[in-house]
């Protein structure tokens, strides 16, 4: 079963940029993750996110409130490189 990356955001330019970066890093590292975009505001709140965009990798919240850099995304995926 594929592991999940969740990108929290309601559709503004920051969230879209984060999603693009995640896809870019996944391709570069050749990792198989499912990327889910969470746009529903209730779901975002329930996850404890008080400011979008937010990034969650395999159940762990990596970044809240700003767009993670490619370096930060890579660092969070480091443990999954076999």
């Amino acid at each position: 079963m594929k592991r999940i990356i969740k990108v929290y955001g309601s559709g503004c330019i920051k969230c879209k940029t984060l999603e693009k970066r995640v896809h870019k890093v996944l391709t570069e590292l050749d990792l198989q993750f499912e990327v889910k975009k969470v746009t529903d505001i209730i779901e975002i709140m329930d996850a404890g996110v008080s400011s979008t965009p937010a990034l969650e990798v395999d159940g762990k919240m990596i970044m809240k409130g700003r767009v993670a850099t490619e370096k930060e995304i890579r660092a969070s995926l480091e443990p999954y490189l076999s």
Partner: protein
Amino acid sequence: MTTITETINGSLTSGIDTLLDYLSFHVLLCLIPAFFIAGAMAVFIPKDTVMKYMGSTTPGFISYPFAALAGFLLAVCSCTVLPLFAGIWKKGAGLGPAVTFLFSAPAVNLLALTYTGSLVGLDIAFARGVLAILFAIIIGVTMDYLFPDANIKNSQENSDNTLDLTFTLSIDRILLVSAVIFGFIIVLLDFPIAFIIGIICLVVVTIRRNEQIPALMIWLVYLLFTGTSQINWSSHPTEFFGVSISDELANMLLKAFLSFIVVIGIFIHSWLYIQQDQIADWLQETKFFVRSILHLIIIGVFVAGLAKYFIPQELVADLLGSNTVLANVFGVLFGIFMYFPTLMEVPIAKLFLDLGMAKGPLLAYLLSDPELSIQSILVTHKLMGKEKNIVYVILVGILTTIAGLIFGLAIGEGFSLY
């Protein structure tokens, strides 16, 4: 066929003229600093600190003003408003302050105010800010009064929310506040000496190394002060390096020069005290704002200019030309039912102003439009439920009408029913 060509020609010319008028040097001096300030606010203002003042144990006379202020300080991106609203309601001060925040955020966010000030006029922008904060608090208090059992006081979650309200006075803080006061004096009274004293205050704070982030914010705000000042020191054509220039141009050059001094101050302060990665974040946030908003501004101004060609002036002047209750209600209804993307309400307001709309109804429109777009009503409906949402919408409608009437009355537009 000729009439169609004429129409296209006329309207395009109107659109382009309006756009070029707006993109004048004067406006760029206001709008560009605003983007940088918005970026800085997004990076440097700590959300948690501000949210602390809206905890569940905070007394009302603090949480409400702070909720309104938070709308100004935090809501620079629309994606922040809704999660924060939910946070304040469910985990913080309750429904009232949350609603206050919800109302003030779109109305007093920095880019909206700067845009309004530069396109429509400083008086309307100022009124928009002040009245929005006032009515945000009124609406919040009313909602809290009408729905007293909406507050889920979760004592377990907020047990360590002890609020430290002591405000320590320090030389730096006094200097910073003085700098702001002098900044306002520059804009409102145009005393050159105010600029010099203000800059000296800021330089002293920079040298003293304390309050680094607040000082940076005030430095940035000074750019807005110089940008919006109505400097009028040159009253006749003067000589500049041997070239004779009009006094209008001379004044503009003076403003640019003052702004340049402030920019040097910002550079030095940032170089001394702000980390490299923070600056990178700041520039990235600024870039995001420009990318998401600038094209909306340009298109908005152009389209409003286009529309100006088609709307009959007599109709506007007749129906909306004076500060009547009818005109204000119309302004509010127009704001509710006409859907425009963010910030589009500003060039539309300018359009109506040019066509003869009175300033009272204009303010009513400007206040109600960002609050009650179909999109935000749908979201608040999901968050608050049908009953609260309907009450909120009605409250906003009534109070923005009243706000417009009061403003119109205050600037001498009179008052009547229709």
